[in-house]
């Protein structure tokens, strides 16, 4: 097993909720709550979960776009600051979801893509040259250099966003829902491109998505988040064939699949995500869990190591009790 490029220990991000008096904190949102994760160089960690589970905040804290409340982040042997905008995230980059919002609509695209180099003091000619090379790598014609963002389709814009992420030759890229805004036929082009670039440039990805099919296609290891915590981590194959946490199983069952045909009455996960300010004595998934016991309501389950790189935060991981909802 290789040395992890990124290692996160017990990371928490909490937001105060203020009431009528703005200086009084009435509650706290635990957006990220005690997260541990490691990503080996050249690999992809997929992070999945439903909206509000904290996956984007986790990515933002790692990138230093969001201050973390507690924990430790180390990257390429260095310990990073938990403060936002500390200026120590060299080697990290990000690709956002919406390629329509993430490009300056009034700048020609070569300037948007090459901006990091221009800021560093690279000459215009050299920057343009480098951007043209990157354009080729991401499948854009160098004739596009002087165009404005509105002249590009959604898929092309996402290629521009990838080009911008690559321009300073990063080691690690956080991809936050990079294909969610795209149509499936275009989505597959971008996923293929990300996989191909990873091989060519030895990139390490943290790939955040709510779409398990997409995550399966790009990830070596997958972490499933629920209410700010990672509830299961496993090699992708393992997670999709033998999920250990009841929430992972429920998610897998809820995804509509072409191969399954007309839906038969299946067991659905009931209820919705509780309010993020709610503090649970026991397992946060317990109110919706089809196989919760009394213990689940009172004790937070520990992270149970199941071997083979799989671990789950559940009192009954992968057991008969936990697998009752399997179809």
């Amino acid at each position, binding site marked *: 097993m290789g040395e992890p490029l990124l290692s996160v220990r017990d990371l928490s991000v909490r937001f105060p909720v203020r009431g009528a008096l703005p200086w009084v904190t009435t509650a706290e949102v635990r957006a990220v709550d005690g997260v541990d994760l490691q990503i080996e160089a050249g690999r992809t960690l997929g992070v999945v979960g*439903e*909206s509000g589970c904290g996956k984007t905040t986790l990515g933002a804290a790692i990138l230093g776009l969001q201050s973390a409340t507690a924990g430790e982040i180390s990257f390429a042997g260095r310990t990073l600051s938990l403060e936002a905008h500390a200026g120590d995230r060299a080697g990290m980059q990000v690709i956002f979801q919406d390629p329509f919002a993430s490009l300056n609509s009034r700048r020609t695209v070569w300037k948007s893509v090459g901006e990091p180099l221009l800021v560093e003091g690279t000459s215009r000619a050299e920057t343009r040259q480098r951007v043209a090379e990157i354009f080729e790598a991401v499948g854009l014609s160098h004739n596009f250099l002087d165009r404005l963002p509105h002249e590009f*389709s*959604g*898929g*092309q814009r996402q290629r521009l966003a990838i080009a911008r992420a690559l321009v300073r030759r990063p080691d690690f890229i956080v991809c936050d829902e990079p294909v969610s805004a795209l*149509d*499936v*036929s*275009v*989505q*597959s*082009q971008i*996923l*293929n491109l990300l*996989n191909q670039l990873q091989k060519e440039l030895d990139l390490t990805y943290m790939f955040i998505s*709510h*779409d*398990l*099919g*997409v995550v*399966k*296609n*790009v*990830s*070596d290891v997958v972490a499933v988040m629920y209410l700010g915590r990672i509830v299961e981590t496993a090699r*992708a*194959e393992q997670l*999709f064939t033998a999920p250990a946490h009841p929430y992972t199983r*429920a*998610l*897998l*069952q*809820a*995804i*509509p*699949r*072409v*191969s*399954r*045909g*007309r*839906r038969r009455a299946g067991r*659905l*996960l*009931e209820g*919705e*995500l509780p309010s993020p300010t709610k503090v649970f004595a026991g397992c946060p998934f317990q109110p919706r869990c089809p196989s919760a016991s009394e213990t689940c309501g009172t004790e937070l389950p520990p992270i149970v190591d199941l071997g083979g790189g799989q671990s789950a935060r559940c009192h009954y991981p992968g057991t008969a009790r936990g697998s009752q909802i399997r179809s």
Partner: protein
Amino acid sequence: MAMPLLQVQGLSVSVYDREIVQAVDLVLERGHTHALVGESGCGKSMTALALIGLLPEGGHCTGGEIRLDGENLAPLRPEAWQAVRGCRIGMIFQDPGAALDPLMTIGGQIAEALALRGLRGRRALRNAAREMLAHVGIPDPDKRLDQYAFELSGGMAQRAMIAIALAARPAVLIADEPTTALDVTIQAQILALMQELQAESGTAILLITHDMGVVSENSDRISVMYAGTVIENGDTEAVMAAPKHPYTRALLRSIPSLDAPRGAPLDVIEGSVPEPSRWPPGCRFAPRCTGSVDACRAVVPRLEAAGAGHTVACVRHGEIS
């Protein structure tokens, strides 16, 4: 064969003289779900809006018929649509946050729809509205009646919108991407709810979506749209198992499968969907099709039979399937 509930023939829609939908045929049967599928910009939402008389400014039907129980709705004036919309054809929109009235209580909005059905009296309306909310699985309906849209979660708001749409007992329900804004576990709940309600009431559902998984699990028939036209029709199971149009086939293959290994290259469709003003001559998919020949660019393909209840608009469907 009995007359279908809703029959659309040769429907064309233009917005400011730009053709967006061209000669679309659809048939909806009672108690069945018909899926209308395609990528963004293919004209599926515009088709839906035409069916309920809600085309945006500048939009109008330039041709074709929309027959509901035999009556042609296409030439109706806006005032006449009022008697159809909500009562005979209901609609669920994608984003409940945007579709619900922010200044009216949920109960008030359901009561409005119930009044369309002729129900009168404050108490009777309130009781019926409470029943509707309970019916769509909203817990504590008494409290929810007096709440506003912003006080509901996405899933709850979508349930409330379904309650509003079904309150007047429409014969046809159009659901335009009803679960796209929702998380998968909530999506599964909403789709199951729609199926349950359909089984009770016999409502015909036109399900508009881009998600092939949703189509496969929730519809009986499917029409696939590309660049303003329907390019394939059939029983959902048959189309999913053996798509005849190269576009449908490519679309299905480009979906990342949970069964494929990590990094398995996905099939791609090169290029992107052409804009309405740039529709190519001949087959509109030809420039992106790997199997296109000169004939494809010369002739506009018509829908031809390709199996029982299966039609496809591709001049080469016999050769390349």
